[in-house]
Each structure stands twice: as structure tokens, then as C-alpha cells.
């Protein structure tokens, strides 16, 4: 099997190729840094993404609190994470980097606030 793709680890956007006989032995070529190999393998086995979104907050001046995952999570988990996020309602004060959801579905990745809202 062979798949051409574009690495999204950074804005460089290396054009990489993943080739494999079985899923335990995937070779990646065309990458300019080690992150390309990790991305290429993950994209075949279980594609992952960073998720950013906003949460309802009872602030006096800001409608939504911006949040972000601390790393990539499997694509399949994104919808359920978003649904959970949209049902939440947070109280101020919030400090940037506050953990909103700890260890999302045992991935070791947290959801954190990316802005402080004092009032």
C-alpha cells in the first residue's frame, strides 16, 4: 500500500509518502524532520488532530471562552468531545491554562483554557 500526503505538523507542509506491507511496518519518505515520520504513521493507523473550540461562560463582557487540547487526539473522538464542550457552562474567574477536561478518554491529553477571564 502507498499513500501520498501533506504533513500538517508545522506550516512547512512537507509532501510525504507512506508505504507499507502491513500496518506494523510503515516507511515514510519525503519528510524534512522526525515529526513527519510520526505524522505519516499516525495518519495511516489512527489520524489525530488538535481541537480548538469555545465554551459558554458567564462573563460580564465575553460570550465564549476559547479552549484547546494540549496535543492531538484521534479524529474519531472529536465529535463526542465537541458535544461535551458545547453542553458545558463555566463560571468566572478562569485563568489561562486552567484544565477544563482532564485526560480526555484516557488519551493523556487535557482540554485547557487559552484565555484568562477574570469577570
Amino acid at each position: 500500500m502507498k499513500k501520498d500526503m501533506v504533513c500538517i505538523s508545522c506550516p512547512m507542509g512537507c509532501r510525504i509518502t507512506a508505504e507499507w506491507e502491513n500496518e506494523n511496518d510503515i516507511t515514510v519518505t519525503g519528510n524534512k524532520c522526525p515529526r513527519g515520520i510520526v505524522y505519516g504513521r499516525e495518519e495511516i493507523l489512527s489520524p489525530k488532530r488538535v481541537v480548538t473550540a469555545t465554551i459558554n461562560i458567564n462573563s460580564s463582557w465575553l460570550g465564549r471562552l476559547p479552549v484547546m487540547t494540549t496535543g492531538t487526539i484521534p479524529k474519531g473522538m472529536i465529535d463526542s468531545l465537541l458535544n461535551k464542550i458545547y453542553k458545558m457552562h463555566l463560571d468566572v474567574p478562569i485563568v489561562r491554562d486552567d484544565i477544563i477536561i482532564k485526560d480526555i478518554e484516557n488519551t493523556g491529553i487535557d482540554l485547557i483554557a487559552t484565555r484568562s477571564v477574570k469577570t
Partner: protein
Amino acid sequence: MKEFKFDTLVIGGGSAGMAAALEVSRRGFTVAVAERENSMGGILNQCIHNGFGLHHFKEELSGPAYAEKFIDMVETSNIEVFIDMTVMDIEETGDLKYAYGLSKLTGMIKFCVKTVVFANGCRERNRGSIGTPGTRPSGVFTAGLAQRLVNMEGYIPGKECVIVGSGDIGLIMARRMTWVGAKVKAVIEIQSYPAGLTRNIVQCLNDFDIPLYLSHVVGEIHGKDRVESIDVIPLKKGIEQKDKTFNIKCDSLLLAVGLVPDNELIQKIGISINPETNGPIVDRQLMTAKNGIFACGNVLHVHDLVDFVTEESERCGRYVSNYLDKKIPAEQFRSIPGQNVKYLVPNYYSPINENKFYLRTMVVKNRAELIVKVNDKEILRKKLKHIQPSEMISFSIPGGTVDCISECRDNTLEVHIV
């Protein structure tokens, strides 16, 4: 009317304004920042996606997080911030400038300053700028406005939308709209290649199977009170193929069709504009044609990355400090765009000092070369892996490298891309 005296007034409290103000303040001068919104941070506050700060902070941050790192520094500095303050006019008397700011909190304020830094960013091009025919229903938004509604105010502008323009803002909004539960039916791009980064095509369009129509334009907007559908026309060698027009049903149209420096006040006070950037013409010290009035960030020229805005604005702050210290600048000559270069900033250079340039090319090319010439002599040659109009290019000429200054020549520096 209240009067305040400062060494510097910075107009705009976004990434450019904060970086410039901090640098001036660090050198021991008094600084005021006038911010139109109710908090600092500018456009970063609505850019909640990740990817900011890879160059400057060496970590991946969201827009608000990048802004907050600077806001924290401003709050612990001696900089005085005037929130909800719009600067309406600037007058000059000798070396002093009088800026008039309006605020609902304080009424009108007169700032008496020695220097002014324009750091008031850019505006979006809108439906009028691209001249889309059709009715005028509600549901047509600029992408940045839609982004603000979704990310800060908590409104979703439509349930089925079409995005015009494949620049990064358009692509980021395609993903955002999908993630808030709307259906993005298409992204339409007039050019034959996508304007945004490839990684954004992958993670914002391909991930959600959103079709990207290259070489297509919106022919007409239909709908009486609300957008009902749009006509899309394919282009062949730039000519509309009207017989191949197709219709897409949607209730909203997001326009991501470019940004223009907000140069209204700059023009009003008689500063000349560079027609290629729509920002002011500046010298090596990012000073406009008027002494003591500087510009940096997106009001000077529209940047792709906030990290570059920060770099440019910190440098602007240093130049402002040098001006306040009454350091006499070295002699400067013109610097102009040459072959395949759309624009070059700044518009003057000094042969003695280091010169940092930003430019945009007009061509898409792999393995290009950047060539800098003065009086027909090559000063610098640099290899570029891949160039395209949407990616800004920067380079520096170290001080003292230009050794061919002649009294009988005009000593203009030309930058070519081949």
C-alpha cells in the same frame, strides 16, 4: 478637554501596538496605547485556533493565548492603556503632535506627544470590493466578522454556508463552521491554486470532505430576505463559462477575499500611501513621510504570521526610541521592487546599518532565487525553496555590505526574484 503628555502614542493595542509600546517603554520613555475595543489583543482574540507563536515563543499557542502573553507584559509595565478609545485626528505643531481620542468612558482626550505609532491593523475586503451581483439579502458576512460572532460572541451566522476565498482565514472558518455544527457546502477560489497553506487545505477541507472549486467565481446571490442560493461560474483562462454555471443552495455566504491596511487616518493627515501595500510609505526606521510618525504591523502591510508582526513592531519600537533619543539617522536611499516582486517594505535603506526587508512575490515557483542589486552590482543572492504570493518573504542585508555607493548614481536598491 483632558490633556495628557507622553513621549509616544501607539494607536492600536493588538499584537503590533503592544510589541512596539513595550519596546519604547523598556527604553525608559512614556507610552500611551489607544485601543478601540474593550480589551487589548486585536484580531488575535477571535483567532482561537492553534498555530501561533511557533517562531516567537517556540510553542504552539492559540491567538488569545499569544495575545495574553503580551497583555501580561503590558500590564506589568509603565504603559498607560486607554481602552474603548478611538483616535480621530492628529495635528502637528513643530515637533509636537496632538492626537484627539474619543471614548465613551472619558469623553474627548487630547494627547500631546513627540511620536505617534500607527499600529491599527487592517480591514476586510467585502462584497462591494469584489462586486458580486444579485440581491442584497441578510446572510452575507465577511469571514472575520463571522469568526468574531462564532468565537467571541457565541452566535452561529448560518447553518449551510459557502465560503468565498481559499486564503487561510477562509479555510480556518470552514473548519470552525463545521465544528459548530454548520454544513460547509463549498469553498470557491477565483485563482487556479489555493491561496492558503497546504496544511490548512488538509486539516480544514479534506478532513471534512469540503469541495474546493478552483478557478470559479460567484455569479449571483439569490434570496429576498435571507440568502437562498448562489450561482457559481467556472473560469477558463480567466473567462467565465456561463453555460457551465451551477447553483448551490445555502443560507449564508462568508467572504474571505483579502485584507487592506486601515489607512484612513494616515491618509487624512496627508501621509503618502504605497499603492501596492495600501499602507504608508516608510523609511528604514519604519517612519512615514512625516517626522515622528511611524507605522508597523498590518497597517503597514498585511502579514501572514503574527510572529512577523511582533518582530517588525519590536524593531519599530527601537526606531521610535532612537528618534526620541535624537539619534541622527544615517543617509538613506530608495529600495524598490524589481522583477517578480509585488512589493517591498521598507521603501528606503541605509548602506551603513543593517536593513530588514519584507516582500511578496507575484509568482508561484519552486527553487527560486532572490537577488539584491545596488547600482547594477549584486549585493546579496539567496536561494528560496518554494515561493508563492500568499507567503511573505523576509531577508536582511547586514550593515556595511553595500560598498558601491556612488555620488554620481542614485544608489537605489532593487530586489528581484528569478
